[in-house]
């Protein structure tokens, strides 16, 4: 089974928080891990905002981005995937970004792993109920 991991999981690997150990275990556990390239963009925006708020240095922000290619396989966002993501956003009442990840989960026939509680909760009692797990 392919495990699709989102930005929240990738960020958790360098967080000092309680999810770090679980995220690390996932990334070093020999699983078939894949991420959508959109996660790199989300992390880039998050790291840029952190630097702007003075929460990290430029070197730390760039290092977080440097490590990403080594952590899993990456798949490209396509217009068709985006279209399906927006369709799912309308259908399920989630954000287009969340819809995109649900579309990728569907397209890759994967299990989505997230540390995003809101994403997890928003998909309860939907067709994605069994396809999304939290760290």
């Amino acid at each position: 089974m392919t495990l699709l991991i989102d930005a929240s999981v990738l960020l958790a690997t360098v967080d000092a928080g309680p999810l770090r150990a679980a995220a690390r275990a996932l990334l070093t556990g020999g699983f078939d891990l894949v991420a959508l390239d959109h996660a790199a963009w989300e992390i880039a925006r998050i790291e840029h905002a952190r630097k702007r708020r003075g929460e990290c240095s430029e070197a730390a922000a760039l290092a977080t981005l440097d490590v990403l290619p080594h952590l899993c396989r990456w798949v490209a966002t396509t217009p068709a995937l985006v279209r399906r993501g927006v369709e799912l956003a309308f259908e399920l009442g989630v954000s287009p970004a969340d819809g995109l990840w649900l579309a990728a989960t569907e397209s890759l026939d994967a299990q989505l792993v997230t540390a995003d509680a809101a994403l997890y909760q928003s998909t309860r009692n939907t067709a994605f109920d069994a396809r999304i797990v939290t760290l």
Partner: protein
Amino acid sequence: MPLPLTKGFGVAQIVISGFDDALLNRLRVRAIVSGRTLDAEVEAILRAAAELSADDKSTLLDQVAALAPARSREGGALQREERDR
């Protein structure tokens, strides 16, 4: 130790001076056996060798984590903030 930052997006070349002829011949034979060009064979070998082990990944993540103080919010909250922006 600073992490090697990725730089440049051009077509890269690696030139190895004084490359051992015997090793080159072995690589040529290996390329023939696998039905690839010599360049493709060397690239395949390097690609496989560049994969990080689980321990390597842990070391790399430790280095990145050490560069920044503890985050004020966790990954899940940061992702939610980014997607709801």
